[in-house]
């Protein structure tokens, strides 16, 4: 800014013109800061200017992974509200008061299906699958999958179909047939060791692809925590404290290195964090995929309370084409509690101990029978 100097300089006394220039300078600075604030919006940012994704999130949603029934792309606001009310009603009903003088449930099981396995289990007291549909830009999508436009997974390759048919022919629990070793076991598979149980039962990784990638909403423990630094982004999944580490601007590990959550590298495209994951094992968390799966996730902020989680999955071994899905992660004040999975894994004792008891009983019975 050019300062005019005319005539004699009188010390201690500013000229009027200098005051005006000063006023303009201050106004200009204020305008620049204001404009910058509008351009950047109310998104929190780190000192390097990148959006700050750090925080705790509740990723639960009642919106299904694939579109069901109607081919509508969005719910109306009334439908979304109705869904929320229905969910709340179900929760209340599932937690209704009981008869204080009730008797034990029936011998032979109570007939409950699904994971409750005829003995009952996951009622409202247990589950936290979400309370409402997620909203993006004021609209309520009817599915997490947005491409294909049908909201459903793409066609499966013939090779994948054949693999599933082969597994189905094996039959039984997890495709494992009782090979005769556990002759005493009436079910499909001998529970001889922990390694025949799925990862969640072994406290190795969560179910429902909660850590993925891609990371999906599941029955409970839907909290996530993101810690972001310039060099790495860490995404902690509450269930089994699965922690994914994304190396910013890194390179993928060699092809013979396989990781439980795949190998993730990240970079910024404007205000979007892009994460590419490859190098999966033969049992990725997203169980429909194979070791050759490639997942590209995009994290961006919709506002200071919401992160948009978008993902594209391709696996030529399984699907004819890639598919894309997205949903909103809500910032939450609820923390991710420490996950003491192994310490509280009494379930494994019950499952394997129960199998050993049945084995002993069968052997004693066989011995008694042969003695007749």
């Amino acid at each position, binding site marked *: 800014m050019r300062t005019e100097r005319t005539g004699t300089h009188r010390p201690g006394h500013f000229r009027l013109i200098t005051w005006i220039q000063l006023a303009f300078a201050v106004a200009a600075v204020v305008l620049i800061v204001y404009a910058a604030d509008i351009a950047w919006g109310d998104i929190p940012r780190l000192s390097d200017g990148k959006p700050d994704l750090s925080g705790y999130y509740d990723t639960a949603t009642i919106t299904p992974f694939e579109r069901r029934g109607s081919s509508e792309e969005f719910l109306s606001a009334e439908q979304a509200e109705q869904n929320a009310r229905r969910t709340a009603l179900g929760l209340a009903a599932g937690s209704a008061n009981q008869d204080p003088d009730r008797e034990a449930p029936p011998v032979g*099981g109570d007939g409950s299906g699904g*994971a409750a396995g005829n003995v009952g289990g996951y009622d409202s007291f247990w589950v936290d699958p979400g309370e409402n549909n997620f909203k993006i830009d004021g609209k309520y999508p009817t599915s997490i999958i947005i491409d294909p436009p049908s909201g459903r997974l793409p066609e499966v390759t013939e090779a994948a179909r054949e*693999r599933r048919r082969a597994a189905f022919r094996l039959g039984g*629990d997890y495709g494992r047939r009782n090979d005769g070793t556990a002759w005493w076991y009436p079910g499909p598979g001998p529970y001889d060791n922990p390694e025949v149980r799925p*990862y969640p039962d072994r406290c190795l990784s969560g179910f429902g692809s909660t850590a993925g990638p891609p990371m999906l909403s599941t029955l409970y423990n839907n909290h996530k925590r993101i810690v972001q630094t310039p060099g790495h982004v860490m995404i902690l999944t509450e269930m089994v404290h699965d922690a994914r580490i994304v190396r910013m601007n890194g390179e993928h590990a060699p092809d013979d290195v396989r990781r439980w959550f795949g190998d993730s590298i990240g970079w910024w495209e404007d205000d979007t964090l892009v994460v590419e994951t490859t190098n999966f094992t033969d049992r990725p968390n997203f169980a429909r995929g194979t070791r050759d799966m490639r997942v590209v996730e995009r994290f961006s902020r919709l506002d200071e309370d919401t992160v948009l989680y978008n993902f594209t999955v391709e696996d030529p071994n399984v699907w004819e084409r890639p598919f894309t899905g997205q949903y909103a992660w809500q910032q939450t004040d609820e923390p991710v509690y420490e996950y003491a999975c192994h310490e509280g894994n009494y*379930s494994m004792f019950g499952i394997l101990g129960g199998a050993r008891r049945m084995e002993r009983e069968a052997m004693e019975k066989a011995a008694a029978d042969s003695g007749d």
Partner: protein
Amino acid sequence: MNNLKRTCVAALCAVPVLVGVKASAHHAFGAEFDPNRPLILRGPVVKIEWTNPHAWFHIEHTNEDGTKTVWMVEAGTPNTLLRRGIHRNSVPIGTQVVVDGYQSKDLSMRANGRNMTFANGQTMFMGSSGTGAPRDGADPTEGATADEQKKLDAAKEADSEKEKE
């Protein structure tokens, strides 16, 4: 550190009935609990473990012969319980509860606690549905709601897919 020592006691061999379940999902209740050993527990809470993913309620049950046995019953996650209005001070030690469920297959003192209430039958759920009226004529011991069942089915399918590969 859990130091359970189980002594397998010879008893009637119960055949587990996996009703319509080709592949069990997480926790595999059908694999862990015995549908032929139902029980009803009544007694004070003597200990609560507030752990993630499951809180554990220890309940002292008085047997028919007057002896007392402490049973362990599983509950929800801390965040789930908090949303239901239950925090670590909601159920003081000594609170009388009633639990019906099925015993663990290894015959340990563990049950799946399919219905845990206070002694008067009142549910532990203290959150508000926000809608007022409960489902008329609904049997609260029915299985999951439609949305919960979808999640259960998805989890089951995901696990079964994984195991098939």
